[in-house]
């Protein structure tokens, strides 16, 4: 075994030890007489931990691996497109999160499907909504989770020089252990450590790039290759017109505001935490992480010619960084993937063990030691299921699977999560909106050539219209009223 391979193993073991230690510490927040301890970290997240877990979950491995590849191929337009996730998260935190947190606190909602059920009046109709929202969440997030497990497995395999399957088992077992132990508190605290690593990685990469070349020469080289790299005449890969790249902003806003594994973090913030403070941290972290895709432009100008654009980041690390630093940055990239995977696992598990259970049986136990055990077993069971599914998942289309999962979930949830926070529809409106969003976005992504932003946005628009229209058409004086 070479020296740097031993170093990578050492880094991995140290990271695992830290994560497990955090899981143990976080378990103190878990209380067997209140499921909120496991599902919402006991609503104790402070501003920095809250911001860190939002940013770490939102910026998956895509920002470090996929996006530099797209930048290498299409140019600077991807730097702008990827950046929109940062302001979108900030806007969601500053102008939406406090409304949602206030309403969730009043109703004592522990998950997003539960919030949907309660905000639409609870009772049998509410349980139906909770169950349907849980099923949609489980189906779509399992698809996304499998793609993340596969991505982290592939990267870990080349980093540690082991088989892909072994690597995936190793990486995901750790997530399962700390998430089972400490619930959302463990996920949020490990996310905080990981996002600090990711931000440090971004700083190291920027320092290396901007101190090694002359900016004028960099621009000249890119223009010599293709003037479209810096001044694109179309919006490719986002669409045919230049303006299509701006569609990423509304997409990313909905991504941050309505996806259950993102918005559940708003519910977990301590009630006295000011969103203005969370917003500052989100903006700073988002600003740093949005710089990463510039690596694609650097590689295009100064790196070797790549047959596959997706190799831009790995080739950058091996060509321009010291092997020790290369190992450390790879760990931070693995962090980016893990911080998304752990959040999805926790959300899928709580949708199964809490929401689906309560939806199917109105007398089911909650806030009890038995309920906590079921929540923990769901993390174990679904984590293992994700690993098994990953072994049979196609070896391609990782990004596409992720887009299908998150984009379609976003389209399904906009009415019952976002619109309902300001204008309350009824059960029929919410149910129809979820199904219309699910099928419209899902079929547009699977059966047409529409871009990954346009399909979910059209699904979200259809779902919103249906939510309001069906609610108005079926409303009775009791079941629906405006709260705006």
């Amino acid at each position, binding site marked *: 075994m070479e020296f740097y391979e031993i170093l990578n193993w050492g880094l991995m073991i140290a990271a695992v030890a830290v994560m497990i230690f955090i899981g143990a510490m976080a378990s103190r927040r878990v209380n067997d007489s209140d499921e909120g301890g496991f599902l919402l970290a006991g609503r104790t997240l402070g501003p920095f931990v809250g911001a860190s877990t939002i940013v770490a979950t939102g910026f998956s491995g895509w920002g470090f691996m996929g996006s530099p590849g797209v930048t290498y191929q299409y140019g*600077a337009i991807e*730097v702008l497109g990827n950046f929109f996730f940062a*302001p979108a998260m900030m806007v969601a935190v*500053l102008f939406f999160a406090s409304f949602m947190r206030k309403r969730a606190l009043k109703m004592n909602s522990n998950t997003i499907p539960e919030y949907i059920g309660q905000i639409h009046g609870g009772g049998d109709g509410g349980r139906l909504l909770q169950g349907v929202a849980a099923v949609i969440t489980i189906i779509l997030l399992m698809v996304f989770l499998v793609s993340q497990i596969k991505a982290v497995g592939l990267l870990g395999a080349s980093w540690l020089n082991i088989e892909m399957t072994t690597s995936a088992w190793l990486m995901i077992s750790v997530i399962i252990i700390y998430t089972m132990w400490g619930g959302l508190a463990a996920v949020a605290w490990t996310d905080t450590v990981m996002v600090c690593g990711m931000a440090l990685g971004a700083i190291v990469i920027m320092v290396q790039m901007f101190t090694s070349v002359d900016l004028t020469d960099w*621009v000249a080289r890119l223009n010599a290759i293709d003037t479209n790299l810096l*001044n694109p005449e179309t919006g490719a890969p986002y669409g045919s017109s230049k303006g299509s790249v701006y569609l990423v902003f509304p997409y990313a806003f909905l991504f941050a505001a309505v996806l259950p594994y993102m918005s559940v973090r708003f519910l977990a913030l301590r009630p006295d935490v000011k969103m*203005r403070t969370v*917003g500052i941290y989100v903006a*700073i972290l988002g*600003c740093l992480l949005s710089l990463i895709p510039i690596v694609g432009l650097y590689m295009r100008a100064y790196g070797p010619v790549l047959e596959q654009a997706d190799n831009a980041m790995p080739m950058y690390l091996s060509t321009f960084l010291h092997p020790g630093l290369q190992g450390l940055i790879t760990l931070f990239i693995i962090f980016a993937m893990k911080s998304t995977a752990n959040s999805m696992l926790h959300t899928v598990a709580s949708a199964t063990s809490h929401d689906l259970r309560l939806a199917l049986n109105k007398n089911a136990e909650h806030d009890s030691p038995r309920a906590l055990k079921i929540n923990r077993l769901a993390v174990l069971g679904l984590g293992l299921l994700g690993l098994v599914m990953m072994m049979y998942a196609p070896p391609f289309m990782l990004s596409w699977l992720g887009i299908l999962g998150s984009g379609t979930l976003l389209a399904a949830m906009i009415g019952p999560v976002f619109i309902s926070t300001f204008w309350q529809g009824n059960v029929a409106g919410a149910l129809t909106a979820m199904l219309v969003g699910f099928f419209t976005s899902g079929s547009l992504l699977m059966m047409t050539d529409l871009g990954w932003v346009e399909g979910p946005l059209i699904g979200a628009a259809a779902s919103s219209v249906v939510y309001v229209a069906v609610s108005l058409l079926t409303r009775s004086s009791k079941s629906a009223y405006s709260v705006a």
Partner: protein
Amino acid sequence: MNSWVLDMFVVLNGIMLVVAVGNYLIDSRKNNATTGG
């Protein structure tokens, strides 16, 4: 920077930070005014 996308990237990054800080200052002042009577 001779690139409309990178110019936009820099400007929007700046706006994001200004909005975050501006919102923080305005909200803090509003809060102080409310709690301070």
